[in-house]
């Protein structure tokens, strides 16, 4: 790791000021992505701004129909929270499928969404459930937030404060894990809402997480696992790497979608 300075603000506004005034600052959340990146010397920040001691950034609450999860809330907390289980059980289940227990004890929802890894799990939930990202300066719909591989709508100095999930219809997430890394080879989040079915796919798209519109139309017309029989994801739009080629991932997506529909009960 290259040397860097370290700051640990107590208020989110101070973190934002530091992001404006310091040379080459970088936010540090759970560090489960950032620290491995720094070890590989793939980044050289001047100062890490550690968000872990800003009380407002963690915690889970429900107001009306909206579940609010603070950006610094660890995956383990989301996975075991009674509030999350009651409001969005599929979201709790997804959080429990991330990495391994030690990673879940450190990694945060804000860090995962800000990072927008094309194989990360939370982006699929955020997109399918129509989450809203609350930052220090605005509210962003998940559909406007994810902008391609590791790209988001966040400005350089912008801080995610929390993520809000509206109450949804029955939902399920099914993921085929890369057996070595635990990241999704294909992860499919299906929501059966009053106004139609939403299907978000991670681990597959060359541009990162996406909504599979064809599957949504087929399942909105008839919500059953075999409703997916006639449709296929174009393998040329799927990622291809040493873990699996595009055709494999396209097929896996369909299988995971079917399993998610079965879990909801079609």
């Amino acid at each position, binding site marked *: *790791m*290259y*040397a*860097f*300075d*370290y700051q*640990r603000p107590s208020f989110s506004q101070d973190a934002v000021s530091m992001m404006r005034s310091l040379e080459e600052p970088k936010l*540090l959340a759970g*560090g*489960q992505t950032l*620290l*491995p990146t*720094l*070890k590989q010397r793939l980044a050289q920040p001047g100062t*890490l701004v*550690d968000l*872990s001691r800003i009380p407002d950034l963690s915690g889970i609450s429900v107001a009306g129909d909206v579940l609010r999860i603070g950006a610094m809330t660890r995956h*383990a907390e989301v996975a075991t929270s009674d509030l999350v289980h009651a409001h969005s059980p599929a979201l709790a289940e997804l959080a429990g499928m991330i*990495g*391994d*227990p*030690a*990673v879940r*004890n*450190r990694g945060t929802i804000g860090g995962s969404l800000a990072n927008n890894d094309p194989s990360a799990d939370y982006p699929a939930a955020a997109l399918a459930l129509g989450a809203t990202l609350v930052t220090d300066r605005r509210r962003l719909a998940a559909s406007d937030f994810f902008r391609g591989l590791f790209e988001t709508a966040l400005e350089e100095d912008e801080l995610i404060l929390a993520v809000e999930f509206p109450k949804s219809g029955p939902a399920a997430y099914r993921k085929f894990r890369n057996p*070595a*890394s*635990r990241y999704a080879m294909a992860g499919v989040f299906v929501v059966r809402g009053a106004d139609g079915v939403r299907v978000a796919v991670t681990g597959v798209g060359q541009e990162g997480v996406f909504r599979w519109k064809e599957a949504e139309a087929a399942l909105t017309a008839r919500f059953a696992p075999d409703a997916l029989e006639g449709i296929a994801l174009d393998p040329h739009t799927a990622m291809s790497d040493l873990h699996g080629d595009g055709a494999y991932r396209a097929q896996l997506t369909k299988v995971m979608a079917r399993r998610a529909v079965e879990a909801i009960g079609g």
Partner: protein
Amino acid sequence: MTKISLTVNGKSVSAEVEPRTLLVQFLREKLLLTGTHVGCDTSQCGACVVHVDGSAVKSCTMLAVQADGARVTTIEGIAQGGVLHPMQEAFREHHGLQCGFCTPGMIMSALDMVNRLGPILDESAIRENLDGNLCRCTGYHNIVKAIAAGAAAMGANPTRAAAE
């Protein structure tokens, strides 16, 4: 340099560290607690697992400065007065190790499992919760047996159950 103060295995420790110092480097190189191992240094293998404020973390993927104010427990901190912790004893009894390199992390992860899930652990729960711990020697069978037995022993003798 940044000043940190923390509790390691029940003792207060203060030191000046470079911000880029990993928690595992601090434990091994400053405190000479070399029981915590570095197997991969890429967050995969779990040889470096310690407890921070009671939960398992990979100490190769945490900075020492992030542990400022925390309570850290390493493999050195779990035996009491020369008597092995029941989980350590179970690893010995059930031959849960060969070269022993992964063992400190396995045991700290096993204790975290008991803290979260209680002392009655079935095989599938143990295997699932060992996702982040790799062993190149044993083939895992005896590790799984050792954890089940160690957890049960902790349940039977709760005064020796706490890891910290």
